[in-house]
């Protein structure tokens, strides 16, 4: 199994408070991702990173920020949590990167076990 750990695994917080979720990998993979998973929706990409200090927005990035100061750590921050951010958050890593023309990307992502966040 890919070495990915997410922390905390569960968190309950109040509206307006800041929250940081951490993803730590031991695989030395270059690419890291944060997804959220909600009932009635497929997995949706929040932010991703293609290297240390190199990050970009995904499909649902509003209200979230990320940082990657080391290869192994990717942090997701909710500056001021809202109830709509109640969700299960998954970190994922991959060895190969984006769907660049001509590049083979198997779409093989390794996921962490998730962080369940409840915003009251």
């Amino acid at each position: 199994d890919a070495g990915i750990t997410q922390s905390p695994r569960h968190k309950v917080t109040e509206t307006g408070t800041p929250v940081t979720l951490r993803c730590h990998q031991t695989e030395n993979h270059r690419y890291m991702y944060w997804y959220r998973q909600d009932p009635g929706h497929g997995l949706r990409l929040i932010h991703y990173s293609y290297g240390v200090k190199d990050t970009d927005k995904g499909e649902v990035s509003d209200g979230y920020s990320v940082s990657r100061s080391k290869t192994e750590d990717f942090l997701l921050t909710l500056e001021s949590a809202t109830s709509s951010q109640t969700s299960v958050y998954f970190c994922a890593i991959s060895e190969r990167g984006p769907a660049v023309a001509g590049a083979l990307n198997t779409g093989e992502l390794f996921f962490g076990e998730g962080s369940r966040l409840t915003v009251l």
Partner: protein
Amino acid sequence: EDQVTQSPEALRLQEGESSSLNCSYTVSGLRGLFWYRQDPGKGPEFLFTLYSAGEEKEKERLKATLTKKESFLHITAPKPEDSATYLCAVQAIYSGGGADGLTFGKGTHLIIQP
């Protein structure tokens, strides 16, 4: 806009009762279609990648097939341990939605009863 629709939403089978899960997709040029398995309380686990119509991949009791409009995940003589949610995702040749450009379906929740 890329779309992925999985059916049925839920499926209950008896152990040994074979069936198929469907993944219909709309994408402007398919780079790849992916199947993942997700157990309760866990992250998705990669199963297969399919690149072109007619391609098939197998793993134990699972076989994934691909046409130009849909993919099927065939489950032969399933066992209770095959119970999980199965996710399908597509990746377009020109992906505007992020690094990997994966668009996920909502999944099929499969229950295999002993």
